[in-house]
């Protein structure tokens, strides 16, 4: 059978037959494959723990970004109150960029939660199959002749092997997704670290790569709206202020 169906089951079958070739008597093979199955189950558990760790890390990053958003908002307000229109605008642009990233991050954390639930299900299924194999192996040991036992072991081991390969595939896909998320989250962290608005004078110079990237993520009108809102709250009234700072832009 071509396609994934073919390749997938051929791999499992060849692994099983290799294992059978090595063993001299079926009872030994049975115990050996059961041991291997238990080891694989441990790996699945470890894999799930890794997904959980990644999720926690992303959540922490998300919390940090949230704090930065609040900080930028406060700083924009302070800048505006001090008549530093340009700085306020830059802070708000950064804030909007971070907010967009934050949204993406939160979506990813949710996806990771779904992955985790699915893997936990898979682990449960695999555990049931291994348990069924354990029962079956005792029956095979007790009831069948060596030649017949070989066939039955092969069948049962292939069934478990297929499940294991499938959990492996699910795990691999989850890990790949997690890696993508981690890379993205790291990039956001770097942006956030470089643009945390610690130093107002440094920001005044603007125009660096991060500024540009963040600005691309925002629309000017959203920033204008926020500026107007802040101005209203601060009671500075009309929009004459921009002209004062225009020379610096």
């Amino acid at each position, binding site marked *: 059978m071509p396609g*994934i*169906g073919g390749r997938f*089951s051929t791999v499992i079958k060849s692994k099983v037959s290799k294992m059978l070739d090595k063993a001299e008597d079926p009872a030994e093979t049975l115990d050996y494959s059961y041991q291997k199955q238990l080891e694989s189950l441990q790996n699945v558990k470890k894999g799930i723990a890794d997904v959980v760790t990644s999720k926690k890390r992303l959540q922490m990053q998300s919390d940090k970004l949230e704090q930065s958003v609040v900080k930028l908002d406060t700083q924009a307000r302070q800048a505006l109150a001090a008549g530093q229109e340009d700085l306020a605008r830059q802070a708000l642009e950064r804030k909007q960029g971070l907010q967009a990233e934050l949204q993406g991050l939160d979506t990813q954390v949710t996806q990771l939660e779904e992955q985790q639930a699915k893997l936990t299900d*898979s682990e449960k299924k695999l555990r049931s199959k291994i348990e069924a*194999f354990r029962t079956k192996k005792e029956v095979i040991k007790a009831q069948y002749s060596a030649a017949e036992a070989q066939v039955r072991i092969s069948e049962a081991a292939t069934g478990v092997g297929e499940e294991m390969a*499938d959990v492996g595939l699910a795990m691999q896909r989850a890990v790949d997704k997690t890696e993508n998320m981690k890379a993205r989250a790291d990039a956001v962290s770097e942006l956030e670290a470089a643009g945390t608005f610690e130093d107002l004078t440094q920001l005044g110079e603007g125009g660096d790569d991060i500024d540009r990237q963040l600005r691309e993520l925002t629309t000017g009108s959203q920033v204008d709206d926020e500026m107007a809102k802040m101005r209203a709250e601060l009671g500075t009234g009309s929009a004459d202020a921009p002209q004062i700072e225009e020379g610096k832009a």
Partner: protein
Amino acid sequence: MIVRISTEGQFEVEDSSVDKLNELDNRCVEAVEGGDEAAFHATYDEMLELVRSHGKELEDDDLHESALILPPPDLTFEEAGEQFTGEGLIPD
């Protein structure tokens, strides 16, 4: 026939559904070859749904091997290009 949906589970599907599966399989190949991503996803989803709705899920402790293994439901169009070629998953 036992069909596995990768990363999801195994289903016992009536042999009468196999022709329909094969037809959908061929349409998936057509969509992939024609570069039609939307058509591929629609057809592949139909294929998965056929297995889920017409198939009976195997018990967790069932040790049977699958006759056909379908790729994971979250298959990307790019990955589909590696699976749905020639005769597709089911030989004609």
